[in-house]
């Protein structure tokens, strides 16, 4: 077994175990911490696939920004206690069964797909380097890039509007 394979299996097990811990932890703060571990494992996979730009962006954006936002919300609303009302046992069993069936169907459908000989190259190839991605982004994808800036602006405005206290706002809130 080469070092790449060992790393692949280690990162896969880490990602799956952490993802399971995310959905089973009682305390939301632990869920966030396990989710950060999932993101680090996926970044490790990106590094194995030599997609270095995406690995760094994944850590900066997900583990850095989004997870801090989650933690802020949990801490600010003081939700870090495990008094979440549980769904009833049979509903949980049915949900797990449904998810397992979905996994089973997808695996069965893709098990014999024509990808037996296909290899995802790891460690070689330079398409994942920031220079190549930057050239593609600013040559072929300039318009989507600019549109995504508008998306961010509207998301920011939307978040501010939603987060504003409506007590002091105009009377349109009372009609609803």
């Amino acid at each position: 077994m080469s070092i790449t394979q060992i790393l692949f299996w280690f990162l896969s097990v880490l990602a799956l175990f952490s993802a399971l811990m995310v959905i089973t932890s009682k305390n939301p703060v632990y869920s966030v911490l396990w989710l950060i571990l999932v993101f680090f494992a996926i970044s490790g996979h990106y590094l194995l696939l030599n997609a270095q730009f995406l690995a760094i962006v994944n850590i900066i954006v997900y583990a850095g920004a989004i997870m801090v936002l989650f933690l802020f919300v949990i801490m600010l609303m003081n939700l870090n206690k495990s008094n979440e009302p549980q769904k009833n046992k049979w509903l949980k069993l049915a949900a797990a069964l449904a998810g397992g069936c979905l996994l089973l169907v997808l695996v069965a459908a893709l098990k014999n797909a024509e990808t037996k000989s296909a290899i995802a190259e790891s460690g070689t190839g330079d398409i994942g380097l920031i220079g190549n991605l930057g050239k593609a982004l600013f040559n072929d994808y300039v318009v989507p890039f600019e549109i995504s800036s508008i998306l961010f602006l509207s998301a920011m405005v939307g978040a501010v509007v939603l987060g504003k206290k409506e007590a002091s706002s105009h009377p349109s809130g009372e009609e609803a």
Partner: protein
Amino acid sequence: MPINYYIFLSLALFAIGIVGVLIRRNAIIVFMCIEIMLNAANLLLVAFSKMHHLQQAATQASAGTDGQIFVFFIMVVAAAEVSVGLAIIVMMFRNVHSIDINFLNRLKH
């Protein structure tokens, strides 16, 4: 690594995300499970882009770049989605003092 391994890893992560959405009642954890599902899709896109690159590299040096650009845009959309979604959760908490998603069923009536 064979592409099959990546497909099955992504499927497993996606299924875990689905199960999480179904079994939890905490809105924030449901939201985190959606992030897991998005990341499973991202991982599969990157793996396929590298597979495509390996197969097409002889004829086209930049084959597979598009897949990674797509992943970048998915991350952009996910960041915007998280900011708006967390704002909605904060607003919901302010109104009903709970983030139990079962309180949201009043949208039915």
